């Protein structure tokens, strides 16, 4: 169990997402950066889909009420345990009464706190994720607040299970640099985001298509877990296209009548009607989740085969971490 000592808005309990209920109109919710949550869970020996806490506003401070273990992954938030600095992507045991503080990261947007056994909140429609708009799931259907006591599924939380010592892994942003392997370094600060062309791509005039690729799109302040609204010279269709409502998945890039693209993300509605120009490849979604408001991204035209192959380094990274954690756990103590 942990007690939240201080927090700002929009820090929520999330797992990998509420899949299987889109046909009821229930959006998936779930972490924005699934890679960071998964690694946090692996470090603790949790199931991959155990729930953690997604921290988007800092500082976030908590006190452990029992002896347990935790991990902090995602954006490096110079976490401290009783004032002692922890390295990024690190797991450590904690004693009852110790205070963990997550500070504003210099890079990246979201940090993840995972706890031994996972956050224990009721499973609703197959998931523990918070559905903020509908006020269900997660911790009482809302963002965490000061004074909340969050349980874990770690039994008594005592040292019954063998705990590994404190250790860490290579953060994803270092192990998996952006862009395809062998690709030229980007010429500016814009984060390259690989996409597949989507259904209405061909309807855009040649000039708009070219600008879709060449523009460094700015992630505007109207961006959140539901989606990123991008800023840049608008992309206009030759004539307005009426779409009937169709299913949305995280990463779909739509172009509303204003012409400035929107990337739909974890809290997006399940259906939408704007023309879709592209879809972000799965391997780059976690990276997009760490892109900050005010920074820029550039879309990279990607083939289906390359998009599928892009998951291989991600899977290899996870496999390597699993092996390493296994070794740590078997180490004689």
């Amino acid at each position, binding site marked *: 169990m942990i007690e939240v000592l201080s927090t700002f808005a929009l820090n929520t309990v999330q797992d990998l997402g509420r*899949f*299987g209920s*889109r*046909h*009821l*109109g*229930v959006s998936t919710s779930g972490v924005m950066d699934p890679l960071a949550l998964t690694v946090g869970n692996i470090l603790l020996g949790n199931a991959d889909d155990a729930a953690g806490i997604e921290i988007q506003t800092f500082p976030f401070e908590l006190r452990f009420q029992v002896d347990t273990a935790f991990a902090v992954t995602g954006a490096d938030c110079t976490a401290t345990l009783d004032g002692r600095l922890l390295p990024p992507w690190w797991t450590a045991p904690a004693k009852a009464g110790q205070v963990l503080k997550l500070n504003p990261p210099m890079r990246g947007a979201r940090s993840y706190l995972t706890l031994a056994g996972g956050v224990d909140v009721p499973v*609703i*429609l197959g998931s523990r994720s918070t*559905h903020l*708009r*509908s006020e*269900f799931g997660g911790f009482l259907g809302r963002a965490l607040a000061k004074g909340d006591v969050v349980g874990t599924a770690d039994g008594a939380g005592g040292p019954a299970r063998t705990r590994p010592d404190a250790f860490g892994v290579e953060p994803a942003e270092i192990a998996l640099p952006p862009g395809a392997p062998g690709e030229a370094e980007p010429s500016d600060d814009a984060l390259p985001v690989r996409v*597949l062309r*989507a*259904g209405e791509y061909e309807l855009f005039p040649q000039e708009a298509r070219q600008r879709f690729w060449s523009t460094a799109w700015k992630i505007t302040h109207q961006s959140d877990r539901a989606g990123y609204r991008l800023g840049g010279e608008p992309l206009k269709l030759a004539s307005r296209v009426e779409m*009937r*409502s*169709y*299913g949305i*998945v995280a*990463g*779909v890039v739509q172009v509303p009548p204003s012409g400035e693209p929107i990337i739909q993300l974890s809290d997006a*509605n*399940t*259906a*939408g009607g704007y023309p*879709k120009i592209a*879809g*972000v*490849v*799965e391997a780059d979604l976690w990276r997009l989740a760490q892109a900050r408001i005010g920074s820029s991204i550039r879309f990279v035209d990607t083939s*289906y085969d390359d*998009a*599928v192959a892009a*998951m291989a380094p991600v899977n290899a990274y996870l496999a390597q971490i699993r092996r390493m954690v296994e070794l740590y756990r078997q180490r004689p103590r």
Partner: protein
Amino acid sequence: MSLDLTIAAAADEAPPAPAEELPKLSNIGTRALILEAPGAFDLLQQRRILALADEVATWPGVAEVVPGVTNLMVIFAEPPRDLQACRRALAEAWRRLPPKPLASRVIEIPVIYGGELGSDLAAVCAYSGQLREEVIRIHSSGTYTVCCLGSSPGFGYLHGLDPKIFMPRKTVPSLRMLAGTVTIGGMQAGVSVSTGPNGWNAIGFTAVSMFDLARDTPALLAPGDIVRFTVERVEP
């Protein structure tokens, strides 16, 4: 020999296949395929979409099927190795499957028309050139079919609004429309399911909950259901 003859005879008797426009297939990323039915927004195409959804949901490797308005999104557990084969299989099933029979379920939704919670009723009257009583009569005498659920939990896309009371969505959305607001958005009727900003036109209110996690089946509506709005009362 007789078998061949049978086939030949059957082929002779079979009516010529009507030349139908092909569905449009496209993908979103590597794990989602969308099939869009050709032609107008009509109930027959929607019933074919629902039949396709039922079948595709049983295919190995399919994680989720999400019917939209005359389209179907299929989400795979892993990126299909042979995308073209998947597209062909979807198109083939679309051609082959008969439309899903409509459910016999009729759901009545009692509506308080007008008043503060139906504040756009006057605008609908003005736009349609119909009297208030007439707009209410038209809306409450219609038979609506649930095409699919989507957008927000339990929200049903309803087919069957009388064109006489079509009303474009508002350019400036209402900032805080209550859940349960009975609405018209373009050529569709609806009932809002969550309180928040909404661009559809409010003509009334219902106390019926469209989505309730305490129920065994949280969503009140299901695709294929028939919906009727009844007049609970009319407020000035």
